[in-house]
């Protein structure tokens, strides 16, 4: 095994040379995670808003349920989804197991509770006057909602970024329901696991660097946005 420095140098070379396989894996990772967040976010925001602004039965139960689901490990979600989507499982007819769609579904399930919980905290802290002002100025709820979201946008962006951060780096669920199929369901984390098991450290490190840079900037982004949110309110 060559030393770490050599492997890292090879990794840089791989990334810069525009190695097709690597960039295919990276774009698949982003495609899947973006889709998952894009689908999960609107529903999560609406639910979070209802939980924060309206009183209804089971409201408290729901809130604590979402908070609890936030800590369900990815492999558990992966396993559950695997059993559901397998052709011998109840949803087998959909033929989704080992496809990128299954990965999207898994990541939606992973990010959803986090999105709801964080967005709920944001809406909870939002100024009620913003909503009332929009309504009294004649806005329909459908228009007042975006207005309110705009007022607390920093907190919501922090929630979305955190959700994205959770799914882009997640391996347990992607490996199980995706199957790590080349050109089809191999994303950054599953590829790192595979390359490491093959002893191809350069490729593992190259992908690891992409993920690391991404995670660090996402985390930095979250704290910046959360900080801004606090300053504004």
């Amino acid at each position, binding site marked *: 095994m060559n030393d770490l420095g050599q492997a890292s140098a090879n990794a840089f070379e791989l990334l810069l040379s525009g190695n097709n396989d690597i960039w295919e894996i990276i774009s698949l990772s982003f495609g899947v995670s973006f889709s998952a967040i894009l689908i999960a976010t609107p529903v999560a925001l609406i639910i979070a808003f209802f939980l924060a602004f309206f009183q209804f039965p089971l409201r408290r139960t729901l809130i604590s349920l979402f908070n609890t689901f936030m800590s369900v490990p990815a492999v558990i979600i992966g396993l559950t989804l695997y059993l559901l989507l397998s052709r011998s499982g109840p949803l087998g007819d959909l033929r989704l197991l080992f496809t990128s769609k299954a990965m999207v579904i898994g990541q939606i399930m992973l990010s959803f509770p986090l999105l709801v919980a964080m967005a709920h905290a944001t809406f909870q802290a939002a100024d009620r006057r*913003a909503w009332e002002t929009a309504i009294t*100025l*004649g806005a329909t709820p459908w228009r007042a909602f975006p207005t309110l979201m705009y007022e607390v946008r920093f907190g919501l962006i922090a929630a979305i970024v955190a959700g994205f951060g959770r799914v882009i780096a997640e391996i347990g669920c992607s490996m199980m329901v995706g199957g790590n199929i080349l050109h089809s369901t191999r994303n950054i984390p599953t590829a790192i696991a595979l390359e490491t098991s093959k002893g191809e450290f350069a490729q593992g490190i190259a992908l690891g660097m992409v993920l690391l840079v991404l995670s660090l900037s996402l985390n930095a982004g979250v704290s910046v946005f959360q900080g801004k949110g606090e300053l*504004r309110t």
Partner: protein
Amino acid sequence: MSHLITYKNITISLSGKSILNIDQLDVAAHQCTLLTGRNGSGKTTLLKIISGLLKPNTANIHYQGLDMSWKQAKPYIQKDIIYLHQQPYLFDASVSDNIAYGLHRLGESKAVARQKVMHALQWADLSHLAHRSAKELSGGEKQRVALTRARILSPQLLLLDEPTASMDTDAKQQTGLLLQRLKSEGVSIIISSHETHTVKHIADHHLHIKDGQLETIEPSTDSDKVSVLKPSKKQSVT
């Protein structure tokens, strides 16, 4: 005296405790009503019910010749009645964007809307603040922007919750001036306040909330404490 709108049998209770129990509330058209009561007496609650923001347990409404439940009336009263918070909330945008907010509903072209906003800014003497961020304004300026933002929608009734509570004299005067103008333009106004002297000169009527019920305070019976008789100050001290 004609009534703009009449609320009957308003009741509301929060966590089992009765807050308001009002038989009848007539809102005088084109006039200004002062609403007083101790802190926590339910002034804000009443204003929010009137404006359609808060759902009462019961309320019947007579408006534009129709008898309706609160729920049936809600779309109409939300359209024609605007509620202003004690400290008005301005959206995180420029002053002119804030003033334009409600125009969206009227579906006017951008050019017309821009014209309207410009006139409104002139009306309130706020033109110099047009492009400032609304979040950076002083309390008095915010109040004036909020009034302008309400006026541009030509409401029938304006509800002001403690409008001058935490303002310096200067800001109070400017707000008072705008209120006078609004009233002279025919807008009905209800002002809630626990201190009466700053707004009494424009108030025509005086209602007082006590133990969840409304009492009308006649100028004659209460002349030295609150003079709500007529617009001008001189007349009120008789």
